[in-house]
């Protein structure tokens, strides 16, 4: 059950944001990913679905190599992001993570002010020279405008970010990625800690961001995958089963496992 051949009719010239080949990953002795070959197109939203433990989060967390924090992870194969193999020992991790932003399941703003949260990545990647206050103000406003948070927080930028509501926190976590202009945004179940209203708001925001950013979003929620993504990847037991246009996959899945999962007979 390897990755499927390119979908007929899809132009292969269209640039790819992420391309993996023969990606295998082990946590200690447990193999979590098996020969994952995926081509993720630039500028669209791709969702990853599958039952718990199928490896979708693991895949996501290998794309910015945050998996390596654990210390007992071993990977083989290649992951090309924007044409560069990020597994290459010569690649600088800091640069990889500048290009690839990540949003986590639980909103995790840093326990500093809203303003400092937005500027955190920007300051790291501009180490040495400190921008003028007015320039920083512009960056903060811009990022918060983009995530539709500006009007709500503009009067309390110096308040702690951890005091915001979960929905606002998650929006802030997206906003703080934008100033460093990443190409790819990885989202690991970004709405699962939010209430339905918050989910709707964050989903709308993600939808707005497509085009400018390539978005790869892991979700447990099939309705969310269906309404908020253009392509969809179904994974099972560490392998990619199906990768297709979202509409296509939900209407006429090619594999029996996909159909079972989508219709709720599995997982």
């Amino acid at each position, binding site marked *: 059950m390897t990755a499927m051949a390119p979908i007929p009719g899809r132009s292969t010239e269209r640039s790819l944001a992420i391309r993996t080949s023969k990606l295998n990953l082990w946590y200690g002795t447990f193999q979590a990913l098996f020969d994952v070959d995926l081509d993720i197109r630039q500028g669209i939203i791709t969702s990853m679905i599958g039952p718990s433990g199928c490896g979708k989060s693991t895949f996501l967390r290998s794309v910015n190599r945050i998996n390596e924090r654990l210390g007992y992870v071993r990977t083989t194969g290649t992951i090309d992001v924007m044409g560069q193999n990020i597994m290459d020992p010569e690649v600088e991790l800091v640069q990889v993570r500048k290009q690839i932003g990540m949003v986590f399941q639980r909103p*995790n*703003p840093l*326990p500093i002010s809203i303003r400092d949260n937005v500027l*955190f*990545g920007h300051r790291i990647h501009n180490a040495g020279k400190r921008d003028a206050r007015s320039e920083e103000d512009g960056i903060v406003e811009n990022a918060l405008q983009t995530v539709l948070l500006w009007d709500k927080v503009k009067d309390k930028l110096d308040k702690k970010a951890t005091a915001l509501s979960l929905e606002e926190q998650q929006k802030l976590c997206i906003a703080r990625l934008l100033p460093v202009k990443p190409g790819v945004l990885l989202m690991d179940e970004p709405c699962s800690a939010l209430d339905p209203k918050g989910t709707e708001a964050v989903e709308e925001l993600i939808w707005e961001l497509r085009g400018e950013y390539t978005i790869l979003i892991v979700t447990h929620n099939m309705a969310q995958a269906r309404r908020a993504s253009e392509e969809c990847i179904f994974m099972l037991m560490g392998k990619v089963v199906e990768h297709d246009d979202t509409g296509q996959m939900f209407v006429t899945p090619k594999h029996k496992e996909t159909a079972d999962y989508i219709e709720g007979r599995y997982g």
Partner: protein
Amino acid sequence: MEQQSRQAVPRLDSDFDRLNRDWYIDKAVQVLVFLGGISAIVFIIGIFVFITKEGFGFLVGDFNFREFFFSPNWRPTSENRETFGILALIAGTASVTGLAMLVAIPFSLGAAVFIAEFASGKTREFLKVTVELLAAIPSVVWGFIGLAMMNPLIIKTFNVPVGLNVLNAGIILGLMAAPIMTSIAEDALKAVPDRYREAAEAMGATRWQVIYKVVLPAAKNGLLGAVLLGVGRGFGETMAVLMATGHSINIPTSVFDSVRALTATIAAELGETAAGSSHYQALFTIGIFLFVVTFIINLLADLVVRGVRKG
């Protein structure tokens, strides 16, 4: 009829008995635990009442607030006129504690950061055990190190006449306070949720950036608490400072001056005074002062550490 009911009753009785026994045990344990719980408070109040009672005569009689706190002359056995000024003793304790903190803060903070953020597995366990071992060294042993090793070393290195001084005691006290400060600072760093580190790393922060931009600010209350407890430890330490300061009454102008600490004064003089004399009572007044100061420092440390848990 009667016979029957009599047969039925004993069973009930024995059931009630069992309940009663459990009830008594329950009550007894409750009382024991309660006594254990309040014993600390009872002892603290008892000690405070005792030292206040002993120092009370001095406080209402000969006590002269200005002389006591602002005179550097501690002449409790003078033939002409006894003076009880503790300014020089406060200066001694403060200078030694201050230097000790200068020594202990970098050591303990560095050790805590290394143990909490960098070391893993066996190294980490080994370091933690070692730090705890260091905390268990008796203070008289530290005093001995100050007297027998640091003293000649300081005389030779800095070419000064006496090696028992602020520098000696400060270093010794700093090393003594460092282990407990390390433990508490490490707890504070460990209490910082891992998702903060993950968030910062995912944004491209290096390990060092994660530590000084995220972890240290998030743990700052706990770290401040660790320093305050170290200060409290330094203030109250007796034996090591008695042995390493040189024990001469002096307001220090350099780290090579010998000084005398508040605690050491009590330890050295109390055995030689007549119970109830002004000298005896003045020493107890110093005790009250120490008690109040350490109480305030510990209370502050507690409040500060509590602050970190709340927010």
